[in-house]
C-alpha cells in the first residue's frame, strides 16, 4: 500500500509526457496557423467554403463518408497518390485550417477526395461535374460498374410531375433501367444538392510557402548511384 503514491505518480507522468508532446506542443506550435493572403489574386488561401458546401459538409459527416474516403494526399514517392491524380502536391496542415471538423480519414475503400473538385468541374457552359456526382450518388453502378460503394437513392425523391417538369430533375441523366414510370421525375433533395456542392468545392490548388518543404532529389549522377544502392539491398 505504501508504494501506491509512487505508482500513481508514474502513471500520471507517463500520460502527461505524451499529452504534452503530442497535444500541447502541437497546439502551441501550429494551432494558430493563419490563411496566406495572395496579393496578386487578392484572396486569402485556403478560401472558406460557400454556404451550401458547408451544409454539404454536414451531410458528408452524418452519412459517414469518412469511413471509406480519405482527404489527404501523401507526398510524391510515398504511395501513388500523386500518380493517381489525387492531387498535385502533398496535403499540408494549412489546407485544413478553415474546416470546423477535419476529415482526414484512415481508409481508402474508395479514392481520396481531397481534390475531387479538380476532377469533376462545373463550368459556366457545362454542369458535367455535378451531373456525374448525381449519377454516381444515385447509384454508383451507373458511372463505376463493379464499385462497392452503396447507393444513395434516399437522397433523391421520385415524384409525380405536376405541370412543368422540375429544372433540377436528374431523370434525363439516368440510364434506361433507372427511369421512373412515365409522368414521374427524379429530383435531388436539398441534402443531395449540398453534398454535391461540397464535393465540387474540394480542391487544394494553392501552393503555400511550406508546400516547398519537400526533399529534392540530388543531381542525376548521385541519383543513379543511390538507385543502384537501393537495388543491391
Amino acid at each position, binding site marked *: 500500500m505504501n508504494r501506491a503514491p509512487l505508482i500513481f505518480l508514474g502513471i500520471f507522468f507517463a500520460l502527461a509526457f505524451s499529452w504534452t508532446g503530442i497535444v500541447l506542443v*502541437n497546439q502551441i506550435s501550429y494551432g494558430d496557423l493563419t490563411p496566406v493572403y495572395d496579393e496578386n489574386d487578392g484572396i486569402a488561401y485556403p478560401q472558406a467554403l460557400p454556404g451550401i458546401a458547408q451544409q454539404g459538409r454536414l451531410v458528408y459527416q452524418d452519412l459517414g463518408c469518412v469511413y471509406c474516403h480519405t482527404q489527404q494526399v501523401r*507526398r510524391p514517392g510515398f504511395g501513388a497518390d500523386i500518380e493517381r491524380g489525387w492531387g498535385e502536391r502533398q496535403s499540408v496542415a494549412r489546407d485544413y485550417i478553415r474546416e470546423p471538423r477535419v476529415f482526414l480519414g484512415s481508409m481508402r475503400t474508395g479514392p481520396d477526395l481531397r481534390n475531387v473538385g479538380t476532377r469533376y468541374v462545373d*463550368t459556366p*457552359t*457545362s454542369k458535367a461535374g455535378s451531373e456525374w456526382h448525381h449519377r454516381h450518388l444515385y447509384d454508383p453502378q451507373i*458511372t463505376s460498374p463493379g464499385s462497392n460503394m452503396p447507393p444513395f437513392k434516399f437522397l433523391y425523391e421520385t415524384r409525380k410531375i405536376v405541370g412543368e417538369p422540375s429544372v433540377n430533375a436528374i431523370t434525363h441523366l439516368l440510364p434506361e433501367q433507372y427511369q421512373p414510370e412515365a409522368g414521374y421525375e427524379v429530383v435531388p433533395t436539398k441534402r443531395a444538392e449540398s453534398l454535391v456542392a461540397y464535393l465540387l468545392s474540394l480542391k487544394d490548388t494553392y501552393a503555400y510557402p511550406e508546400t516547398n*518543404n519537400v526533399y529534392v532529389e540530388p543531381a542525376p549522377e548521385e541519383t543513379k548511384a543511390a538507385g543502384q544502392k537501393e537495388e543491391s539491398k
Partner: protein
Amino acid sequence: MSQQPPENKQSMEQAGASDESIQKVHSILLREKPEPSEGYKPMPLFLLGFISTMIFICSIYLVHYRGGFDPLVYDERFDPAKAAGAGGPVELTPEQIVAMGKKLYNTCATCHQPNGQGLPGVYPPLAGSEWVLENDQRLIRVLLDGLNGPIEVKGNTYNGAMPAFGAAGYKWNDEKIAAVLTYIRQEWGNAAEPITAAHVKEIREVDNRTKPWTAEELAAFE
C-alpha cells in the same frame, strides 16, 4: 488492518443471514486455487541488451527523420537546414509526356473508363474512335471548349455534355492538353501521331471561343 469494524459487522450479519448459501459458497470457492502471487526469477541478461539496442535504434531513427522539428515540414527526408532552391523548368521526353498524359487521364477515366471503352449509351468510347484518331483539329477543339448535343461515335449516337478543359472549364494549360491527347491517341491499340503543345496553343489563339462545340460545327474543320 482492521480499522473498519462496521464493515465486518455488516458482513457477519450477511454471513449469518443464509446458512444455505454459505454451504454452496464453499463448494465453488473451496476448489479454487490460491490467489495469484509473484515469483522472483531474475531478468534474463539478454533482455537488457535487447532493450538498449531498441532504444538506440529508435533514437537514431527519430533524430534522422526529425524534419528539423519544424511544424511545417511534412516530408521526413526534408532537412530545413540544408534546403536549397529547386531547379528551373525542364524539357520533357516523349515518354514523360505520355506518363503525364496517363496521370491526367484519371480525370477522363471516370466517364470514358480506364480502358477507354466509355459506357454504352452514356459515355462514348475513345479506343478506336474516329474522333480521336482522325482529325486532330476537331479533337483539340473538343477538349479545349467542350462539346454538347448528339454525336456519332463508331456507329452509335450519344447525347451528353463533354466539359471544356481550356479557359472556359478546367483551365488546363497547353502542355497538359497536349499530353493527355497524345496519351489517348497512343493507348488501347490507338496509334496516331502525338499532339504538340504548340499546336494546341495555335488553335486556342485562333478560336478564342467560350462556348462548347456541337458535332455539326466541328464537321466544318477538315
